[in-house]
């Protein structure tokens, strides 16, 4: 049995008016979107048609395309939405009519996106985030409002006159009507920041995606890669070189391509970036060259910030800032999800912006308490264990499967590399507790400093493995409703873990752990 304890959320089924439609211009966009989803079967069928000379491949392509276009049209006619003072409702589906109802006070974020196609027709997509932790449910997504309507909806949903007190906002500014609200610019893209582009490695993702698309096309259309002259010639060229030279050449090509792709990716994602604070208690992030993205985060949903420094970016003294807010899940990569508060930028700027966003520069600058030699040693033993296992696997291949010995000698370099990584990981470890903020830092390949408001901590998990207990260390995890859901302080001495947990949330732990 499940007992729901939140406020009642029964669906209001009201046959009354107020239902709105998407923009009719979407009739031009939806079919193209559907076609784009069907692009692989279509291309495969068309190529098959060309290779087979005739057959009924053409009819298949036409049929698939026709279904796609019909589906696109249907989406316009079957989707409608309305906004009542209490709810936002979306109706969609032809055979399975669904009405999705979201209470308005549960709305955490409003995200307005328009890709190239949208922009040609002056349209936008509005996504309303409700902070559901359920990954499958994508909530309210209205694809295809006119840009003006999207802007209106955005304002309607978030800039309502505040009915409940907003922590951190002066009561005098709160009572102002939405029209008189003003906007303060907190950060804007400086063209010089694009120099951090090559160090973001987002280009690796591009390579992966291109490789994926390429291999899928090759598979579905049965092209023999070796017959394409460019591929053929370059493989031949590499085959003539000695192996180390060939590896170096490939590596250099990957590095150059990654750097270019990462820079292009940076510009595409963050061009026109602006972070501003609206006096009605919201943060706005606007960014994107081709796909314009406009994210709004309610400040009363903001639980903290995350300063993230991937290794390469750290080497050139750069960092980026993410928001920790309920309703925003942290996705993979820099620009998935709407939680980006600052693209890769100089570290000083990042710390400054993060401090301004949370209204307290202290937690970003505060000296961190170290976790001690035992915690550092654990980094080394773990790195050594992983390297040793990998080396033994390689050794097994050499002895049993007849791999070359140089593979084993190369694998041996994992030990010093692992030690360097461990050293850096040990140096990253730290935590601090200021008046309102819990700060934790760890990681090497991506070093992150989490700054979480202590009243956003909704529980503690303290885990100890057998090895941790032998040296008296605990991993303290603060659970929260936003961002990554869990923010951990790795390998702190037991007494310190209890001290931090007690001081951050008074009156909770004392009842159970009386030491």
């Amino acid at each position, binding site marked *: 049995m499940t007992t729901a304890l939140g*406020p009642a959320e029964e669906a209001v089924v009201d046959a009354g008016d107020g239902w709105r439609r998407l923009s009719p211009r979407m009739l031009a966009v939806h079919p193209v979107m559907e076609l784009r989803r069907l692009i692989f079967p279509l291309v495969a069928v068309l190529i098959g048609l060309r290779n087979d000379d005739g057959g009924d491949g053409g009819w298949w392509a036409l049929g698939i395309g026709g279904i796609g276009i019909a589906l696109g049209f249907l989406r316009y006619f079957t989707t409608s939405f309305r906004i009542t003072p209490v709810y936002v409702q979306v109706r969609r589906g032809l055979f399975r009519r669904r009405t999705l109802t979201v209470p308005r006070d549960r709305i955490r974020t409003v995200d307005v996106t328009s890709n190239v196609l949208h922009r040609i027709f002056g349209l936008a997509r509005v996504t309303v985030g409700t902070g559901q932790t359920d990954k499958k449910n994508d909530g309210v997504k209205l694809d295809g409002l006119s840009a003006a309507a999207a802007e209106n909806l955005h304002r309607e949903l978030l800039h309502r006159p505040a009915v409940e007190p907003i922590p951190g906002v002066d009561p005098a500014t709160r009572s102002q009507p939405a029209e008189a609200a003003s906007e303060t610019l907190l950060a804007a893209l400086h063209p010089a920041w694009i120099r951090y582009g090559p160090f973001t490695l987002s280009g690796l993702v591009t390579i992966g995606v291109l490789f994926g698309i390429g291999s899928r096309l090759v598979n579905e259309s049965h092209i023999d890669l070796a017959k394409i002259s460019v591929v053929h010639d370059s493989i031949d060229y590499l085959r003539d070189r000695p192996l180390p030279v060939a590896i170096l050449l490939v590596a250099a090509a990957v590095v150059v391509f990654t750097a270019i792709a990462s820079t292009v990716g940076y510009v595409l994602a963050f061009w026109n970036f602006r972070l501003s604070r609206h006096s009605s208690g919201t943060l706005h992030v606007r960014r994107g060259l081709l796909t314009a993205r406009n994210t709004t985060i309610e400040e009363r949903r903001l639980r903290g910030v995350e300063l993230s420094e991937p290794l390469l970016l750290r080497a050139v003294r750069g960092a980026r800032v993410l928001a920790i807010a309920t309703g925003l899940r942290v996705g993979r990569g820099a620009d998935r999800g709407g939680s980006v508060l600052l693209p890769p930028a100089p570290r000083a700027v990042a710390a400054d912006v993060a401090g301004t966003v949370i209204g307290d520069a202290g937690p970003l600058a505060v000296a961190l308490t170290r976790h001690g030699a035992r915690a550092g040693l654990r980094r080394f033993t773990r790195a050594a264990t992983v390297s040793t296992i990998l080396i033994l696997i390689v050794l097994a291949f050499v002895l049993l499967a007849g791999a070359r010995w140089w593979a084993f000698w190369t694998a041996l370099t994992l030990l010093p590399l692992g030690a360097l990584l461990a050293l850096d990981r040990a140096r990253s470890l730290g935590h601090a507790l200021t008046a309102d903020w819990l700060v934790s830092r760890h990681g090497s390949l991506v070093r992150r400093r989490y700054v979480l408001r202590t009243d956003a901590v909704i529980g503690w998990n303290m885990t100890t493995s057998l090895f941790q207990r032998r040296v008296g260390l605990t991993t303290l995890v603060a*659970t929260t409703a936003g961002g990554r*859901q*869990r923010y951990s302080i790795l390998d702190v001495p037991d007494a310190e873990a209890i001290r931090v947990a007690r001081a951050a949330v008074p*009156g909770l732990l004392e*009842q159970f752990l009386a030491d």
Partner: protein
Amino acid sequence: MHRVSPRALWYWVAKAAVLWVVLLVPQVIWWFADSDGAGLPHLIIGVAWLVLAAVHLAVMPQWRYRVHRWEATDTAVYTQTGWLSQERRIAPISRVQTVDSERGPIEQLFKLANVTVTTASAAGPIKIDGLAAKDADQLVADLTTRVGRTTGDAT
């Protein structure tokens, strides 16, 4: 601080036994598929299976029973679970979203139930395993009334 029901010992034994039997299945299939091969590899893996299963079944439930604790006060819920790796979880009542009680087939066999308390964080569910069924019902009733008294959206 409460211990779980002593019947939970047998519940953990039964659960682990199911796992070990499942692990036995591929070995038996392999044995039959490769009946003409040498017997030694089968014997080694079989003995390893037997030893590991025996040690696990003998040690794990006792160890767990010594570790597992739970308590629900007016303001918070606390659990302590695990054996090799142990975990303590605390959540304030004011942040609880749902209280959920479940009785799986093996649990019904031993007249046990578990209670899961979730918060708004995906990392925060607190699961109390191996409660006597009537204790579980009582706990759910208590928690529900306590949570009902709190206000706010618990994020």
